[in-house]
């Protein structure tokens, strides 16, 4: 398949929500060591809200689905990650069609513009030990699949691989942004909490996409 149906996109988002909720303790643990310890709780809250919303509502178009997800995160989370992960789902919304499916390029551009919006909002770039260090390689990998017009399933699988590598790479970085920057050299060795969250989201996408009919 070269496109993803809105009901499958919804399944991906539900599974991503569950994955984040499950991994709250892990996220909390990392943010406690090199941050203020609230990342897991915030992400869990945000994605519980998303999950509840998704379970209640029917979606017929890709853009309304993705916009609702982003807005739900913004409304429920707070903290740096509320804006950051909200923006991840809202910043590229213009690329999402008002249709019941999206194609490879639309998905890749959607996340790419989300990333750019985060850079603008957060005044950061990849390399400063943030979630961008997982998001950016995920996007690069997805873009390549889209350029080579691969399968939608490959797009998400490669996206996850990129995110995972990026998250791993964040371990070697010293934080330059957010509360964790005050932990200076001692941030080296641990991954960035937001990068872990990002890789978990893409992990869930990759796990779920293989289960979707018509994929």
């Amino acid at each position, binding site marked *: 398949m070269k496109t993803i149906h809105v009901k499958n996109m919804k399944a991906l988002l539900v599974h991503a929500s569950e994955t984040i909720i499950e991994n709250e303790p892990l996220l909390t643990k990392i943010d406690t060591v090199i941050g203020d310890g609230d990342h897991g709780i915030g992400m869990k*809250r945000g994605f519980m809200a998303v999950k509840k919303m998704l379970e209640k509502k029917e979606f017929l178009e890709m853009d309304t689905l993705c916009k609702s997800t982003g807005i739900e995160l913004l409304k429920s989370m*707070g903290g740096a990650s509320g804006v950051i992960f909200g923006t991840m789902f809202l910043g590229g919304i213009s690329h999402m069609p008002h249709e019941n499916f999206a194609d490879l390029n639309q998905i890749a551009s959607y996340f790419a513009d989300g990333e750019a919006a985060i850079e603008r909002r957060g005044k950061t770039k990849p390399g400063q030990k943030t979630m961008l260090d997982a998001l950016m390689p995920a996007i690069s990998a997805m873009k390549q699949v889209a350029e080579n017009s691969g399968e939608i399933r490959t797009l998400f699988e490669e996206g996850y691989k990129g995110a995972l590598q990026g998250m791993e790479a964040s371990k070697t970085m010293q934080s330059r942004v957010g509360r964790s920057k005050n932990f200076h050299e001692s941030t080296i060795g641990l991954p960035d909490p937001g990068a872990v969250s990002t890789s978990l989201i893409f992990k869930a996408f990759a796990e779920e996409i293989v289960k979707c009919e018509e994929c």
Partner: protein
Amino acid sequence: MKELIFINKNKQHLDEVIQGIMAARPEALRRIENEYSYVLTKKELFADKVQVIVNGGGGRGPFFEGVVGEGMADAMVSGDFNCAPNAYMLYQTAKEIEQNKGILFIANNFMGDYLNNDMAKELLEGDGIETKVCYASDDIYSSRGENKENRGGLSGIGFIMKVAAAASESGENLKEVHRVSEKVNERTRSLSLCYNVGKNAIEFGNGFSGEKPTEIVPYEDVNRVAEKVVGVLMNELGRYRSGRIHIMVNRMLYTSYAEGYIMLGALKKKLEGRGIKTGICTAGNYFDAYDYNGFIISFMAADDEIENYTKRVNGFDFTV
């Protein structure tokens, strides 16, 4: 942070704190109920004035749950523990209280607070509501030799609040209220100092999320600590050191009222010993974020314009 003992399990503690505050001040405050933040506003708003909204991550208080009131904030929004309140509630609160004169948000300068205030500002401006934000960056130890604008905030935000309140109450427009708030921030410096029992030493620059101290010195007595604090903060104030110094002594959880005033007295004496004029001096429990015996000490170097806007404000729970 030490776990709270007097809570109800499986309940939102911060919500219950807000309910308790409402029990104490039903005639003065209004609560805006919502699922994801804690919002208090004045019950009766001054019409025709810039509205001042203080916001930040939830904590043990009184900053920020206790800051709404005469001479202080018009509203406060707090998020969960350590978590900046979300942009959407900042936006909604502002929409609810604004009086056609614009909104001033005041927050401590942390990434989460910046991101949410910045986004709320964008949303409000989209609705045609003039908005500005003042980020308090008084914590001198929160960045290593970096610019003040990269520093985080501590209890010095208390100075900004009351000056912004006074300026807005005296009818100044948003631009002016914002300018004078920024000026106060520019002239405020704070440091944290914690007593380490095991080492009988004072740790300077501990962060409230466990950031390591910048310097550790053997503890002798209050006078010696005050001497050091005065030296460091006056040096940090740089070209503003000729201003009149307002002192705010913030006691940490384990430090008693009596010790707060002993420290305040010692600081004032040291400053005066150096021929420095002092302004309003207070000791209290403002920003309760440290599980330590110790203090956050803030100096604000007022000029004549700022002096115009500084008078002692007896908040409900503290004087600033």
